[in-house]
């Protein structure tokens, strides 16, 4: 998109959130919301250290905000429910991308009680932060923003009221749709040449669906997550990407020229049994990986190490907090913007034990600060990484370590199943 800035190391853009009518599924038009008229919204590309200026115009008939999901930036720019932008209003965001945070992020609305509907109607977009010294060789890059949706016969987005039986099921499971989109498209195709290696940045922008990603017949090289690259690549057959999480994959073109492969969402039972969808165990196709007829290129050597992920020192942690997640509650409470649930000292290192007490997964997101996962059910993580969201499976405990090294303010922590978030599964952390 157009960078209005003429200054060095400054990116200045205008984002307009507004209603639009477009065809998301063949044969019918949908009243949707979009940033600058497109779904997904424009991708923002910046470099570490850049100053990013965004002028946000709200042309929606309701309040909105823009949350820069995962970015470590001052509180006033967080776009949380504390800073609603009224209909017809404008807000100017001006912040600098910290060094060392190269990775894939995203932006989406976060107004109190309205997040799910606005995301479901089309308000989401990606942010790519590039490092000056990216350790990976130049590779063809693909951005995959995953969403799902369901529509009524007239093409409108199917968002039943919470009081209806369907709305109650949505409240439990989170809103899911039977149509799976990649960058707003159904079942697109990505071309790859045999032997080629592509770098995929995958964003789960679904309101609630968790993706268990695999390309049957191929292995995946996972090289990064929410907060950028790992220290070393992780060779795997599948990746679970919960709501709002990102993953960077190296897709190696191990297929033969002219063949095809599928990126699929394998079944993943994150559901509470009472409302588990009958078709939860279906495998769903996301896109086709189509090998060109070109002869294979020479396999390239990929780096064995990428960048250091300096561990946060657990011995330095001065506070251990427990976050008990139940169905719709954190520590037995629902969201109250007038209440501060946790208070942390600026500069402190803390360990949070996030306990899921119920029979459904809850992806836990902390605003403003990236963290490292220490262990899951006491088992240390096998690869160190920066995260801003971590899935906490049914009846499991995930411990994270976080340092509140900058930016005092009131930060949200919440379940990123958006139906849970809008209905109060959220709290306030004040860092001061």
């Amino acid at each position, binding site marked *: 998109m157009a960078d209005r800035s003429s200054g060095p190391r400054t990116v200045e853009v205008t984002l307009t959130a507004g209603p639009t009518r477009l065809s998301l599924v063949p044969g019918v038009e949908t009243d949707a919301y979009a940033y600058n008229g497109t779904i997904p919204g424009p991708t923002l590309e910046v470099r570490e250290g850049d100053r990013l200026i965004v002028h946000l115009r709200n042309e929606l008939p309701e309040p909105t905000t823009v949350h820069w999901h995962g970015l470590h930036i001052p509180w006033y720019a967080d776009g949380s429910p504390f800073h609603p932008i009224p209909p017809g209003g404008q807000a100017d965001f001006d912040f600098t991308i910290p060094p060392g945070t190269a990775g894939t992020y995203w932006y989406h609305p976060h107004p109190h009680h309205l997040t799910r509907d606005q995301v479901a109607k089309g308000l989401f977009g990606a942010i790519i932060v590039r490092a000056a010294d990216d350790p990976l060789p130049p590779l063809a890059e693909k951005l995959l923003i995953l969403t799902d949706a369901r529509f009524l016969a007239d093409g409108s987005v199917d968002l039943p009221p919470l009081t209806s*039986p369907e709305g*109650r*099921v949505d*409240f*439990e499971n989170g809103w899911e749709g039977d149509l799976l989109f990649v960058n707003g498209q159904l079942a697109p195709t990505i071309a790859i040449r045999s032997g080629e290696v592509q770098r995929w940045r995958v964003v789960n922008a679904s309101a609630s669906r968790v993706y268990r990603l695999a390309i049957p017949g191929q292995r995946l090289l996972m090289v990064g997550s929410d907060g950028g690259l790992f220290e070393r690549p992780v060779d795997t057959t599948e990746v679970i990407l919960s709501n709002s999480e990102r993953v960077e994959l190296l897709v190696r073109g191990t297929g033969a020229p002219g063949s095809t492969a599928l990126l699929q969402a394998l079944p993943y039972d994150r559901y*509470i*049994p*009472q*409302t588990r969808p009958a078709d939860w165990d279906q495998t769903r196709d996301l896109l086709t990986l189509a090998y060109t007829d070109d002869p294979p290129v020479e396999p390239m050597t990929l780096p064995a190490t990428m960048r250091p992920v300096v561990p946060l020192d657990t011995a330095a942690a001065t506070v251990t907090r*427990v976050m*008990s997640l*139940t*169905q*719709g*509650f954190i520590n*037995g*409470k*629902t969201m109250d913007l007038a209440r501060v649930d946790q208070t942390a000292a600026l500069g402190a290192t803390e360990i949070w034990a996030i*306990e*899921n*007490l*119920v*029979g*459904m997964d809850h992806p836990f997101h902390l605003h403003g600060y990236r963290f490292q996962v220490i262990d899951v059910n006491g088992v240390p993580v096998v690869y160190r990484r920066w995260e801003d969201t971590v899935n906490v499976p*049914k*009846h*499991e*405990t995930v411990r994270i370590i976080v340092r509140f090294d900058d930016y005092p303010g009131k930060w949200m922590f919440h379940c990123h199943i958006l139906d849970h978030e809008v209905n109060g599964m959220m709290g306030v952390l004040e860092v001061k």
Partner: protein
Amino acid sequence: MMRRSVWWIRPLVAVPVIVAAVAVVAAFTGGPVIMADGPADPSQVLRGRQLVLEHACSLCHGSFDPGQEGWVAGMMRPDQEFLIGPFRTRPRNLTPDNVTGMGRFSERQIFNSLRYGLRPGETADVEITSTTPGEGNFPINPKYLAPPMPWPAWRHMPDEDLWAIAAYLKHGVAPVSHKVEDSEGPPDFWAGAYTPEEIGTLPAAAFPTAHETEPPAGVDRAQVLRGRQVAIQHDCGGCHGGGSSPAADGWLAGITDPSDAFLIGVCGEAEAGPCFILRPRNLTPDGATGLGRFSARQIFNALRYGLRPSDATDREIAADRSNFPAEPDYLGPIMPWVALRHMADEDLWALVAYIEHGLRPATNEVEASDAPPDRWAGEYTVEKIGPYPATPFPTAYEVKP
């Protein structure tokens, strides 16, 4: 009327012993009322333990005696699941383990689960002052504990008893890490099954209802009313008719539909093993078909010792059991006498008095239940059901508050 019986609760096949949840309410001690988690009161914890024993909590949620492994730690074997219509429901871990048990739930959440049937993991930690959805902190969309959890009976217990149970589970039990898979259920979390029409009112209908009668002159009316409370709070009607509502049709009069019987054993699999049909009998004082055939002592001995009334049980059992029947004929394993036996004598006698003098006789002949040749003696060894009285507090699975 919601009945915990075969048409909607069908124990899975190959169940060695299924015990229907039945409860007991013991004497009201009037101890301090804890309104939220606070320092544990040892006497309250002990009172809670007594209630957990008498109310048969662990017969579904673990083991028979606090000295046995698995005490209130949740179902341990797949055959301890219940099949409620198409749904499998599973007794959960009640120990104070943080993630797999109730350690992170407040005493108030436990109280709310017992008084209102609300799942602690799906309900806010708040004081509830109404049973109307959306009012007084009662959830707009209440999510109820899965059947056969007999909270419609438990809710009739006095506040002090429910707080005592919560105190015991939080402060008197050792945490056990044991994950029980979530129960299945309908998307409304059983709300359609727990309407006042289905489970009766709170408090219960005033005495006497159409199925009850004022006791004759010379009978201790207070004892009869106490016995009525015992019957309601211990869920006798859950199997024997009427649920927790003395106003409901068939109150304590036994099953009328053969499909309300329980199947015990290896049922439904041809020649896989023995299958026994157990039929909750008519408890009213009808002289031909009910307990009017038996003496107060025989009824007492059925509750305390599990002995089916007979000539051999029409006597006070000596403390040394020297006159215990040589070949005891026990009640079938659905009947939770193993828990009821822990009730105080005065509560058992009160229940007997209510049956004899507070209920109207109802004619309902219920066919005798099946039994194995040993009349269930092999299921009721001390090794299996634990000692009477129960192993003293604290056992290896308990902690001092």
